């Protein structure tokens, strides 16, 4: 059994490659590998996006970060599937049909319900809805993630555009 599938759902988010500032899933509440997942994130008032405050005092969460949080939940569902190929970095590739149905504020707990629509070794597609206190606040028709090998990605010390190692033939094509 892989490291992901043998990890307790509650601590699964720690397996995402994101650092603390961009880790937008706090916990996995339920998981059926290969099928569905429920994950939650508490929107904290001390998240960097709120540093400038708000004119009306109400801190509205950026829809793009809500989408990122949904995407991370979907990535965890893919990583917990038998098809997932390890030693790759899951990255968002396409999004279709994201709708924000209600505002999300600091202090809200967003709960994502993700369903895996398609799953392969190097890509996966999911749909998702998000609720706050049982009320749907967002939905997305499809999220497509692809796996990229670390060698294709820039190292932390690399110059802009420079990858960790020479790109492969298929990358150059």
């Amino acid at each position, binding site marked *: 059994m892989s490291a992901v599938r043998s990890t307790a759902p509650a601590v699964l988010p720690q397996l995402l490659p994101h650092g603390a500032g961009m880790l937008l899933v706090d916990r996995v509440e339920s998981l059926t590998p290969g099928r569905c997942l429920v994950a939650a994130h508490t929107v904290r008032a001390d998240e960097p996006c709120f540093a400038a405050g708000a004119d009306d005092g109400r801190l509205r969460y950026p829809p793009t970060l809500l989408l990122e949080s949904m995407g991370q939940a979907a990535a965890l569902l893919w990583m917990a599937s038998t098809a997932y190929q390890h030693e790759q970095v899951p990255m968002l590739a396409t999004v279709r049909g994201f709708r924000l149905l209600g505002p999300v504020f600091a202090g809200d707990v967003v709960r994502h319900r993700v369903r895996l629509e398609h799953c392969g070794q190097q890509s996966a597609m999911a749909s998702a809805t998000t609720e706050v206190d049982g009320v749907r606040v967002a939905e997305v028709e499809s999220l497509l993630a692809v796996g990229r090998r670390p060698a294709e990605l*820039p190292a932390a010390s690399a110059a802009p555009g420079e990858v960790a190692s020479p790109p492969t033939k298929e990358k150059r094509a």
Partner: protein
Amino acid sequence: MTTTAARSPRLGHASPLTEMPMSDPSYANDAVVRLVEIPAGGAYQDSHFPEHPIFPGVFLAELCCRLALDLVDHAPAVWAVTQIRALRLVAPVHPGETLEVRTVRDAQAGPARNSVDVWSTFSRDGTVVGTAYVTLEPQP
């Protein structure tokens, strides 16, 4: 180069982006074009990913929303993002790069309502690295 902070109207949600130097808008036909410098760091960006820093793809959609403000009337002053209809990430965008962003208002889309549908195309050295299609509505 100017920064996003000086522009109005504005979006109604908190900004996840650090200040991003960008050129003044250049208008051509129905499109507006800006050059945007992707910052080398930022509160969110630094952790996406610590070992392989890549500009978060969702932030291209955020940029599209910001640049849509170049194409809306100044009243109402505050706009809400209600849809990210499509986001396509063709290639990773790295910190320190400069992107050309061409943004067009889609006059054909949507029913007769007070919403704005906007396309952005993000290019690096003439090659498209991503596209985003968003809908903004006046914030109640």
